[in-house]
């Protein structure tokens, strides 16, 4: 900070001391030094007079009337009233945090439930896999089961009529080569006879007993 031009170091010192001497917070030494300086410096004397007038003007009470008692009553009413709106942000912040936390917990729960349902579904389908290992026992085949390959031109009506006439019912198929597994509807039916009938039927390409399959 530089001081206004054309002033001596003493005037600079006087300028800086004036406010504190005026408000009586300067040291006694500082006050006496200023008093001596003002005695022989007309410029600083004028400045100090103006500073004194400034302090007196600043000390005048406010010219804007504000009723202290009415203001205090309103303040006391505010103390008794519920928390004002402007204070809410400070209190609502944790609340909004709670909502966020609750939403996140809900999302995690939904995910957990979804994963649980999916896992249960996978476990249930895992009981009957679409493959079989060599060490596993083959699935039991009903006695008298016959594997039949109908011709591609055979109609569904003819196929149903054939099964009905021979008292057979489909229990599997068709597989990749179009073979069906059929069993006698009644266990006492003669399998060999049925097999011959099937082989003699027009539209049946293959009829083999399952038990004889290697």
């Amino acid at each position: 900070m530089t001081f206004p031009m054309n002033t001596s170091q003493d005037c600079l010192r006087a300028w800086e001391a004036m406010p504190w001497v005026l408000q009586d917070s300067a040291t006694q030494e500082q006050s006496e030094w200023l008093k001596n300086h003002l005695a022989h410096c007309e410029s600083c004397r004028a400045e100090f007079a103006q500073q004194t007038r400034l302090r007196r003007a600043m000390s005048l009470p406010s010219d804007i009337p504000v009723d202290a008692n009415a203001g205090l009553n309103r303040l006391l009413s505010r103390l008794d009233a519920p928390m004002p709106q402007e204070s809410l942000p400070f209190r609502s912040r944790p609340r909004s945090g709670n909502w966020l936390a609750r939403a996140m917990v809900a999302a995690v729960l939904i995910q957990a439930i979804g994963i649980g349902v999916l896992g249960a579904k996978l476990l249930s389908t895992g009981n009957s896999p679409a493959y079989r290992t060599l060490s596993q026992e083959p699935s039991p085949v009903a006695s008298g089961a016959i594997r039949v390959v109908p011709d591609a031109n055979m109609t569904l009506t003819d196929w149903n009529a054939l099964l009905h006439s021979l008292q057979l019912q489909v229990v599997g198929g068709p597989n990749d080569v179009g073979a069906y597994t059929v069993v006698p509807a009644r266990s006492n039916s003669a399998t060999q006879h049925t097999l011959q009938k099937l082989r003699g039927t027009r539209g049946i390409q293959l009829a083999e007993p399952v038990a004889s399959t290697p």
Partner: protein
Amino acid sequence: MNEADLNADVADRMLLQRMSAGDRVALATLYHSYHGRLCRFLARLTRRADVIEEVINDCFLVTWQKAGDFRGDSRVSTWIMGIAYRCGLKALRQHGDEPVEDDAVPEERIPSTDPDEDRELRDWLGKGLDRLSADQRVVIELVYGVGHTLEDVATIMQCPVGTVKARLFHARVKLRNVLPALAGESPIYKENVP
């Protein structure tokens, strides 16, 4: 700090202690004790009486709520003026910082007991303060009006002491050049502060 200031601060601390225990009589005492100086201080920021009262009440609401938290790092008056300053700036942001013109203040609202000399002094001061920024007016008020030190003002305005010194210097030079001199001499000072 002189003895009177020390005694006043001790009394203020006792009031704060009672307020922290919920004593509303202590609140009322402190309110009346500070009302005048807060009115004048806030009048340097705004000319609206309703805003001034609102800021004073905001200030004392905070003082009431935080009375138990006062650690005594500064004088109670410095602490309260700091709260009032921040509440005042907040109110200015909400209401707009354009002060009501002096002409808008009805003549009958000026105290009738105001002597002619005081009225002349007010007019003289008004001419100078109109040329200052809000921050400069606040510094002048705190130093010349309330009697705070540079360190107190820095605490109140939450800025470095150097900033307060610069604002005070600029304000004084501006007032020196603007205000009609008592002895009739022409202004001689120039602002060389960057």
